């Protein structure tokens, strides 16, 4: 079978360049300029896919991006596989490998088609009703184990590729004066008018070749030239203009606020092969001063029983296949229509030698110039038509219809062309918040007044005549140029000949289909939604079209209802005996067409996915073989394994080393904010729960910041450097949040205060030196300060020098040991670290990572915000309410502490938990219960927040939040594990050196 359906003509083709390709492993031939769809039709391939639910054989319905059936996967080499592409948009290239979807083992013989016989089980909302029992093996057992896996396997579209995508995707931000969406007649006229004003114009079109309906136009002339010549000349003039850019293969998929338009451009395969550095797709984020929408219209299918059989397609699409690609969709066709435009298709097909058995018009009369022309060409026309049955399963063989004259008859045919009229593409207008108005005369929603600076022209504005569309486009282009601040050209008369007006259209299902419980009359092809499904949904009480849509899934397929929405609306209105505006319209949301993940991700992948923050000491740790963990965007050294050590052994060694000698820890990621100004102390008093006014210069305080709702938000040590200057530290993850909260109150609530805030996180490298030998380690390097206990006690801060460079030294501890944190300028961080590390090694010290830091602080019962807390934990819950400045009249969060919930008795409190078996390490997040087997439905007492093996204590330890926990010390509770409940005794949350003697060493 070699292109048996190819006929002479086809303006898009280059017949000098034959192409071979495969579909489901079978080799076929086509020409350059073909789409996959046109080439398949030329080769007589009729079944191209299986439907989603019933696995019915499906053929090509349309010639454009609205195609619901012909979804294919296209492979272009390793990693280059794209599922769910519309064959109508896939440009044929030599060696193209395409496969059909949702069928097994093959398209012709698909096991899944059994579901078509079981269709009564799959009505609207079937997943809510069917497959619910039996449940005697456990709740939802049958659903989880049997039905869902089977249904999931059977239903679906393409398979997602598994290999990484080797292609590059680019992202552009751009601006223009006038963006024209759609390069059909109206769009071209608009672009030309806007360009003549000197405006910066971008004209985009989804197709490979701009021109829209003009491409297939054979009869009309514009400005005295055949339409296609006019198209070529206009494109040439626009292409030559320096102020115009034409983007083909570019889908305007989203129209956001203030004319921010998303465009996705796909590059043609030959260009990519010629230049492998090109991106596969470009995502344009285009900000346009003015937008002209010339998006055209989409032809509607007719709703009748078995209207989904391969060989039944839209009339204008058949005309496009003929005129663009030299493909006849059949040898003998029947046309069923409610719109004059289908007569054009019939006339063109007849001229190409296709037998047109009958044009059956649903309307009472067909008397416009196009029907007259059809009659004059000898084509039989009958009116008052209704389709009653289709014969043929894999391909239409005959249609049984009633019409006047002729009555009921059966006509053999191998293709049926249908047209229910045209639906204006108002998607982008509506996305931009424009209100749609229902035009009862046209039976269409059309744009009302725009919200954004936009104009609609041509078929998307329900202006269907060629001459009228051109005039409207010209006017829109001029108006847009003027609104963008240019002087527009004079209005241009664009005379058109040979384009007689075409009118008509129908919506919904005819009366004999409505209420027929046996008719498989499809509204949404891809999602297998029939008329009876919509009827059932309404019968079951769904009224709003938004609910009907979700219950039946009509309009929820990849074509997003481009073909089905208006018919579904009309059916819902008919069943409810109300009007279409009364039923409402579903919301148009971006994207207008599917956009690839690659386009959205663009360059944001791998190393560029998210910025990584590294401390000045990072390279040293990496060299030493440290394992790293991500904390926000920071890379933090997690532990420093020695040869042959696993994590647990390394952490145990690091912990013992700190307790026995000294350890170095890179704390540079801690957030740091310098708070300066006359009212700095007062400001901190209001922002933190603690008191600060009386904090002496040179001393530190453990600061606790609450949200205004009274819960702990962040903590950190705050040192007073001068009466008007504080060094504030925050958690690593909370730095930005704390600064934002401070700025918020400073700028908008405490505006009377004179305070300046500066983030100094990345200005300082912070080296924590912890352990009984910490003083010995730093002493040789520190100048200008007395490290003795008397002169520099725990919780002190001094500016001095370390290793000869300016240093801010704090005596603080997050390990429970004698400890210092030495801050030096980031640029000096690595050198100072190296010097300190060499000294520490003399004392048997080591470097330790975040895991050991966590264990050491847990042994002391120090909390970590975000681990012990989750935004609903108060200071009292944690036993930290001693820190609250009780005398203060106000601070952020204070008033909320009196509200019922934070003050409630029996809240969860921080406790320690020691498992009866000291080798068992509980899981963080595990539930804590009063009994080993709590009754189903009862609440847990709390949960484990931290849990580690502790080398210091030679056993496991855990922290937990437990209801009324402090009163339960000594009680035996249970924690859930995968192996069952484990008993543990409640203790105070500090396991080591409860008196804190070591801090003051």
């Amino acid at each position, binding site marked *: 079978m070699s292109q048996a359906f190819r006929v002479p003509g086809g303006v898009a083709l280059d017949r000098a360049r034959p192409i071979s390709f495969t579909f489901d492993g079978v080799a076929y031939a086509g020409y350059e300029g073909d789409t996959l769809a046109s080439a398949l039709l030329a080769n007589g391939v009729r079944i191209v896919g299986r439907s989603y639910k019933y696995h019915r054989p499906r053929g090509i319905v349309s010639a454009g991006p609205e195609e619901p059936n012909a979804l294919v996967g296209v492979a272009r080499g390793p990693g280059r596989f794209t599922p769910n592409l519309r064959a109508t948009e896939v440009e044929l290239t030599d060696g193209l490998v395409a496969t059909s979807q949702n069928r097994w083992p093959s398209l012709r013989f698909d096991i899944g088609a059994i579901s078509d016989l079981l269709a009564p089980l799959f009505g609207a909302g079937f997943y809510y009703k069917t497959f619910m029992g039996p449940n005697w093996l456990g709740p939802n057992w049958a659903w989880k184990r049997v039905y869902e896996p089977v249904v999931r396997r059977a239903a679906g579209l393409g398979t997602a590729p598994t290999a990484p995508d080797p292609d590059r995707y680019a992202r552009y931000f751009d601006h223009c004066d006038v963006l024209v969406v759609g390069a059909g007649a109206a769009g071209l006229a608009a672009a030309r008018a806007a360009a003549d004003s000197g405006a910066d114009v971008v004209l985009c079109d989804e197709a490979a070749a701009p021109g829209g309906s003009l491409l297939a136009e054979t009869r009309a002339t514009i400005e005295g030239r055949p339409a296609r010549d006019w198209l070529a000349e206009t494109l040439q003039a626009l292409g030559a203009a320096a102020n115009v850019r034409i983007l083909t293969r570019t889908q305007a998929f989203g129209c956001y606020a203030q004319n*921010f338009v998303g465009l996705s451009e796909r590059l043609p395969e030959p260009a990519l092969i010629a230049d492998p550095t090109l991106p596969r797709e470009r995502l344009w984020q285009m900000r346009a001063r003015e937008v002209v929408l010339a998006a055209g219209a989409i032809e509607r299918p007719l709703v009748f029983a078995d209207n989904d059989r391969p060989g039944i397609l839209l009339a204008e699409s058949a005309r496009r296949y003929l005129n663009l690609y030299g493909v006849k969709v059949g040898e003998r066709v029947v046309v069923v229509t409610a719109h004059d435009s289908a007569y054009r298709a019939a006339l063109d097909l007849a001229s190409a030698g296709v037998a047109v058995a009958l044009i059956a018009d649903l309307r009472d009369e067909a008397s416009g110039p196009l029907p007259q022309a059809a009659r004059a060409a000898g084509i039989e026309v009958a009116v008052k038509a209704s389709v009653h049955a289709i014969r043929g399963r894999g391909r239409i063989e005959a249609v049984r219809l009633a019409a006047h004259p002729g009555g009921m008859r059966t006509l053999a045919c191998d293709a049926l062309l249908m047209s229910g009229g045209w639906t204006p593409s108002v998607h982008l207008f509506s996305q931009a*918040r424009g209100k749609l108005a229902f035009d009862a005369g046209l039976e269409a929603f059309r744009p009302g007044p725009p919200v954004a600076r936009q104009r609609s022209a041509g078929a998307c504005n329900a202006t269907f005549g060629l001459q009228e569309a051109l005039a409207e486009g010209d006017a829109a282009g001029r108006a847009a140029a003027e609104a963008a601040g240019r002087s527009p050209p004079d209005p241009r008369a664009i005379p058109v000949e040979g384009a007689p007006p075409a009118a008509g259209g129908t919506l919904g299902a005819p009366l004999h289909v409505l209420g027929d419980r046996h008719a498989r009359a499809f509204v949404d092809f891809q999602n297998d939604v029939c008329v009876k499904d919509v009827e059932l949904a309404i019968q079951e009480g769904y009224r709003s079209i938004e609910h009907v849509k979700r219950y039946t899934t009509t309009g929820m397929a990849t074509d997003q209802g481009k073909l089905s929405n208006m018919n579904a609306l009309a059916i819902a209105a008919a069943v409810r005996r109300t009007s279409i505006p009364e039923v409402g319209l579903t919301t148009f949301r971006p994207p207008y067409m599917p956009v690839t993940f690659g386009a959205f991700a663009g360059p944001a992948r791998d190393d560029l996915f998210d910025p990584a923050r590294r401390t000045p000491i990072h390279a040293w740790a990496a060299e030493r073989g440290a394992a790293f963990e991500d904390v926000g965007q920071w890379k933090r050294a997690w532990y420093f394994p020695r040869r042959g050590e696993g994590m647990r052994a390394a952490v145990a060694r690091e912990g013992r080393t700190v307790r026995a000698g000294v350890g170095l820890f890179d704390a540079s990621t801690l957030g740091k904010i310098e708070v300066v100004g006359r009212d700095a102390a007062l400001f901190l008093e209001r922002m933190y729960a603690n008191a600060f006014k009386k904090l002496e210069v040179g001393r530190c305080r453990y600061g606790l910041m609450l949200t205004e709702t009274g819960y702990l938000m962040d903590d950190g040590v705050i040192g007073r450097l001068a009466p008007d200057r504080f060094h504030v530290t925050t958690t690593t993850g909370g730095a930005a949040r704390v600064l934002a909260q401070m700025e918020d109150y400073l*700028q*908008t609530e405490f505006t009377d205060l004179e305070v300046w805030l500066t983030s100094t996180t990345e200005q300082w490298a912070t080296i924590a030196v912890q352990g009984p030998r910490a003083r010995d380690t730093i002493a040789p390097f520190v100048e200008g300060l007395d490290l003795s206990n008397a002169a520099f006690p725990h919780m002190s801060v001094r500016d001095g020098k370390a290793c000869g460079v300016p240093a801010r030294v704090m005596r603080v501890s997050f390990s429970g040991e004698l400890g210092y944190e030495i801050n030096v300028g980031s640029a000096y961080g690595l050198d100072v670290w190296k010097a300190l590390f060499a000294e520490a090694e003399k004392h048997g010290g080591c470097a330790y990572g975040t895991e050991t830091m966590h264990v050491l602080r847990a042994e002391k019962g120090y909390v970590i915000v975000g681990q012990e807390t989750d935004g609903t934990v108060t200071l009292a819950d944690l036993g930290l309410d001693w820190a609250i400045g009780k005398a203060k009249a*106000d601070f952020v969060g*204070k*008033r*909320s502490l009196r509200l019922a919930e934070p003050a409630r008795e029996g809240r969860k409190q921080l406790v320690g938990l020691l498992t009866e078996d000291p080798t068992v390490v509980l899981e963080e997040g595990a539930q804590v219960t009063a009994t080993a087997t709590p009754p189903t439905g009862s609440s847990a007492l709390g949960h484990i927040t931290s849990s580690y093996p502790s080398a210091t204590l030679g056993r496991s330890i855990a922290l937990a939040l437990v209801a009324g926990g402090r009163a339960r010390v000594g009680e035996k509770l249970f924690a859930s594990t995968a192996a069952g409940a484990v008993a543990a005794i409640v203790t105070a949350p500090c396991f080591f050196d409860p008196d804190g003697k070591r801090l003051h060493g």
Partner: protein
Amino acid sequence: MLLIPCPYCGMERPEIEFRHGGEAHVVRPPDPSAVTDEAWTDYLYFRSNPKGVYAERWRHVSGCGRFFNVVRDTVSDRILASYRAGEPRPAAPVEARR
């Protein structure tokens, strides 16, 4: 993406430079200890959330860092006014620019 006029920088900048700060003109009671629980929880949790004209706070985090207020129509996303924190909400926002 919105284009937001920053009253401090004096120009429209894309939304990614800003962070939304919730409803504007929600004033923290000057003496929280003097208000009832109900008044306090109203301040904490209750917002007007209108369909239509809405005054909201924005912070130009990746610009000048300042908080300011914007009057925006939540239906059309049109920005009707932009003014500094502390200034009163314009009585009848005129559509300076769409």
